[in-house]
């Protein structure tokens, strides 16, 4: 997780909202990339879950984007995607050919935790009260997302038992 050229002490509410939109956008795009990788590599179940995450992140992005435009209209953005990396997006090396749905969910859980930690770590630096309120809200939402992923994890089928995987049929009795 990294940011470049962002000073949280001077962050305005407009910039904070733009940053939040970009974080969701990065996560959405990364989930899409991972889904496409797994579809290419014949891992459809985990790909379906990542596609679901694309939709979830897009909903979060559009909600934040709507708020931003309600408050600040079309005022130009001063933060860019180049300033952020891997904040809520699952990391590239989380994907594996043949990964299970459970492994995909665990990757997603790590991403939600990363996002929570990002806002929690940034908060003490923030001075603007409106930005503090926004970051607190986003931090708490990440906890909500973690609970949702945990529920999905509880429902997900367990990892296949490797002892029964790929075993040869007996050739003689």
């Amino acid at each position, binding site marked *: 997780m990294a940011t*470049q050229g962002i000073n949280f002490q001077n962050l305005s509410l407009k910039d904070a909202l733009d940053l939040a939109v970009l974080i969701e956008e990065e996560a959405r795009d990364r989930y899409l990339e991972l889904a496409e*990788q797994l579809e290419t590599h014949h891992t459809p179940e985990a790909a379906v879950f990542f596609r679901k995450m694309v939709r979830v992140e897009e909903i979060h992005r559009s909600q934040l984007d709507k708020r931003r435009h309600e408050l600040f209209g079309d005022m130009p953005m001063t933060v860019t*995607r180049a300033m952020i990396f891997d904040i809520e997006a699952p990391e590239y*090396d989380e994907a*594996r050919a043949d990964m299970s749905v459970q492994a995909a969910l665990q990757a997603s859980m790590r991403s939600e935790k990363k996002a929570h930690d990002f806002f929690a770590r940034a908060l003490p630096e923030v001075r603007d009260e409106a930005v503090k309120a926004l970051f607190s809200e986003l931090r708490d939402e990440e906890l909500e997302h973690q609970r949702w992923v945990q529920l999905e994890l509880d429902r997900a089928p367990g990892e296949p038992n490797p002892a029964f995987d790929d075993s040869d049929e007996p050739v003689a009795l």
Partner: protein
Amino acid sequence: MTALATLPPAQFKSELKPIWCPGCGDYGVVQAIYRALSAIGRPPHEIAFISGIGCSSRIPGYTTAYGFNTVHGRALPIAQGLKLANPDLLVLVAGGDGDGFSIGGGHVPHAIRRNLDLTYIVMDNQVYGLTKGQLSPTSPKGLKTVTSAYGSLESPINPLLQVLSCGAGFVAQSTPADMPGLAAVIEEAIRYPGFSFVNVQSPCVTFGEEDQQVKAHKGRMQSLASKGHDPADYLKALELATHYGVELYTGVFYRNPNPPATYDAQVRERQAELQKTAVPRERILEMFQKG
């Protein structure tokens, strides 16, 4: 040359879906290339991406630039010919460590001393991944692979030291574990007027070692800027490069503060000079007729 500062990175992404193994470092590298090209501001039709053979050499197909996935180890000669034929093109060259430092190893010193304005990006994963994990020229000594069941007996090539000692004017290293840093060094390499080299430690998720994966890079990488390195200091760059394979330094090792004229610029200059005294075409036949 067209300057379009507003082309977003997505404009450089082609419709072709990468087929690298999920988790491969090259996914991060291609994203960093999109970012760097967006920052450079040249449109895709003014860019040519030349590669050799191997997993990483598939990269040109994943961009909207002109691309040529050539033959093994021959990306540099083809890229040099292209740059001479059309000097206005922004020419990028990509390949793996095997393509660049084994099969194409003989071309590297000559491309460097010739100094055409090219950017050579090597995705160094220390193994031949596409052919199922044999030893490559940068595999560490002792590495066990399908071709070295008891561990490699060979010492690896040090790509950083090699290109520095050959006189490359711009030498950098990065990893997809640091995407903003990787995009920044690729952009800087492209902007350097002359041969520039970027070694990307891009892990092979299938045949690579655990301590070479992106997660491990995040814990190991140290930026040269944070160590106070001055990229104009050639001798210090050489010393830092000797730590290849032990430390993972990221950033610019060396940037020649006084870049010499490029080969392509000198060719144009000589052509202009010779043009002044050149015999006009219509008179050439006349000269033969007169004997």
